[in-house]
């Protein structure tokens, strides 16, 4: 079936993975630092826009409108792109998309490709497919290069290597680029990457990119980036293959005026990112001679069909929701078991997976609403999360979902207990006796429960519980009354 290519089917469930990540203090420190910095910058540049809310609303309406008429805009894009000399391909799922790209690279006569950072190619695990076909892919975005050389996985949509600090990056570069003398200043590391990749840019004849936007009106493609590696890949090779989800289309060129204000400020906290490239088909005197676009479904039409979850497709992949999410900030991206982490990953991944896998992800949120606040196109992520939780519960009675049914059952029992004072007191007394063997004292002499038995186990799977007080407020109040003080 469709949503294939992502990792979560083999990844551990979120609660299990998160637990492991919480033990990695270095990772948590790195993630917290990076997300703090981006959030600070974002707040500053968003604050200087008097019309931010109006831009968000326009962004939301443009995306919503596009999804409603998606067939029309995709056909318009195809016609205009073809007229300008591009070749448009369609792929139902990840496997078809990989097959098309591998075929096109082979047809270009190259056994190497240079790649621009693209979450879509991560989603379909393109690099593995290329390697299997004897084609070596060089990631050219600095963060993706760190991930590739470190044999790691991306942990953020915009800053995929934010979980690594400079010492860790230096160690990877020393080893993989054979540079034992390499310093650890960020400048040294960037210089090493520049030297390492320059030769590839000038030599490799085929490039693979993703797309930030496809413009139906002109058949143009827009890629937004910082380092110039994107421009290198789009400009220098003879063949360029762009792969994009069918959700990436924008109706008109003018719509970029909204997206190019919303995206950079939300993603990296810059007024504009250093480079935006827009190109339409091929130009005899400038850039590649051969240009292909692969339009990929990979479960996006299933999301489109679910009216309550459809807004997931409005996402412009800015990553702001990840930086704002208290859960993501604690666990980092890898716990989500998917290239799409954080709040957007929690709603996108299960849908790309047809709910077969990653069913714990809709629960990986405290529903605090921070993601909705920052989303530049106003995707109501908490609303979609709750909708997906309902779907999980409805569609399944076994496995992970069964466990959450139990949580729902436990909540019902709690409600029953809270409604009666007698029952509430009885449970409190019982609890104090029963918890005894489970309590561990921490360094400050506070008691914590890390594990609860039976049906209550789900609660402590993701959090520690404070030991119950020796005396309840009610008990104290009554005793105080009795003593007459």
């Amino acid at each position: 079936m469709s949503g294939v290519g992502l990792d979560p089917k083999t990844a551990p469930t979120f609660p299990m993975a998160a637990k492991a990540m919480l033990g990695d203090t270095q990772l948590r420190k790195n993630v917290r630092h990076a997300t703090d910095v981006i959030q600070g910058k974002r707040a500053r540049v968003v604050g200087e826009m008097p019309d931010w809310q109006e831009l968000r609303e326009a962004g939301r309406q443009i995306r919503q409108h596009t999804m409603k008429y998606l067939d029309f805009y995709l056909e318009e894009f195809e016609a205009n792109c073809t007229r300008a000399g591009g070749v448009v391909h369609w792929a139902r799922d990840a496997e078809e998309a990989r097959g098309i790209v591998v075929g096109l690279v082979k047809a270009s006569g190259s056994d190497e490709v240079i790649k621009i950072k693209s979450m879509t190619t991560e989603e379909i695990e393109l690099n593995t497919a290329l390697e299997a076909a004897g084609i070596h892919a060089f990631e050219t975005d600095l963060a993706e290069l760190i991930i590739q050389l470190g044999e790691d996985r991306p942990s953020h949509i915009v800053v995929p290597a934010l979980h690594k600090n400079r010492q860790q990056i230096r160690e990877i570069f020393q080893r993989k680029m054979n540079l034992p003398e390499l310093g650890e200043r960020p400048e040294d590391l960037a210089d090493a990457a520049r030297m390492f990749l320059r030769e590839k840019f000038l030599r490799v004849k085929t490039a693979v990119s993703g797309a930030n936007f496809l413009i139906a009106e002109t058949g143009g493609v827009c890629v937004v980036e910082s380092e110039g590696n994107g421009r290198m890949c789009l400009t220098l090779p003879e063949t360029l293959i762009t792969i994009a989800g069918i959700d990436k289309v924008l109706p008109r060129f003018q719509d970029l005026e909204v997206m190019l204000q919303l995206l950079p400020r939300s993603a990296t906290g810059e007024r504009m990112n250093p480079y935006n490239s827009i190109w339409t088909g091929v130009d005899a005197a400038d850039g590649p001679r051969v240009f292909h676009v692969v339009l990929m479904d990979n479960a996006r039409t299933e999301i489109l069909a679910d009216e309550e979850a459809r807004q997931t497709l409005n996402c412009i992949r800015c990553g702001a929701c990840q930086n704002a999410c208290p859960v993501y900030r604690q666990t980092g991206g890898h716990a989500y078991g998917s290239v799409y982490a954080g709040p957007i990953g929690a709603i996108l991944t299960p849908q790309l997976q047809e709910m077969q896998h990653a069913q714990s992800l809709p629960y990986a949120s405290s529903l605090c609403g921070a993601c909705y606040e920052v989303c530049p196109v106003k995707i109501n992520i908490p609303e979609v999360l709750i909708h997906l939780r309902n779907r999980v519960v409805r569609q399944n009675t076994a496995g992970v979902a069964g466990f959450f049914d139990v949580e729902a059952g436990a909540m019902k029992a709690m409600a029953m207990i809270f409604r009666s004072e007698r029952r509430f007191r009885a449970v409190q007394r019982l609890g104090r006796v029963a918890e005894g063997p489970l309590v561990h004292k921490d360094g400050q002499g506070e008691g914590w429960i890390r594990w609860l038995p039976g049906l209550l186990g789900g609660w402590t799977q993701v959090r520690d519980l404070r030991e119950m007080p020796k005396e309840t407020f009610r008990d104290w109040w009554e005793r105080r009354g009795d003593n007459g003080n």
Partner: protein
Amino acid sequence: MATDTVTNSTRDEVLRRIRAATGGTSDGGVAKAGWEGIARDYRRKGTREREGVLALLEDRLRDYDARVVRVAGGRVAQSVAEMLAERGVRRMVVPVGLPVAWLPAAAGAGGVEFVVDEGLSSGDLDDFDGVMTGATLAIAETGTFVLQSVAGQGRRAATLVPDYHLCVVRAEDVVETVPESMAQLQRTAGLATTFVSGPSATADIEMTRIKGVHGPRFLDVILIV
């Protein structure tokens, strides 16, 4: 061809799924009317007077560590010569169609060699110290200038491979907001277009901004007033 058949049936299948999801085939007229109805209550036009717009552009560019100078039309060549001397560059590539009056030959080039890009290879471009171009327009609010594949601005590769970029912008081509820039670019929307905001940069290592990973590391702007 066999692959064409496969592609066509895939295309039809994807479009069929979309239509099943959205409730039928879209009517182009209805789609266009719907697009017209999108609320656009954001700022379309800037509010600053001319001097304010230019000052804003300068401020934003400096924020990106670009150097900016204002010169009168007749003094561009002189100013170029000074900039290049300060930067210590020796070999500059220039696009076909760059105004000759901007080149400091007459004003004394200080030994800088200018080579016109008539299809130089990427390897050749790598041997230059810098590139000098004009621009279609600049956006004050974001500190951006826009390059297109036209005379005087050249091929995208030429403004990318050398380590230094000197861009000459006319004050009358400076707009305040992003929507104003898009309105102007609409006529030539099909050309290869690059928005440049400061030198190339990355923040991938501990969120520390580092200039010039792959594109030009140094950027100067001459504003003709």
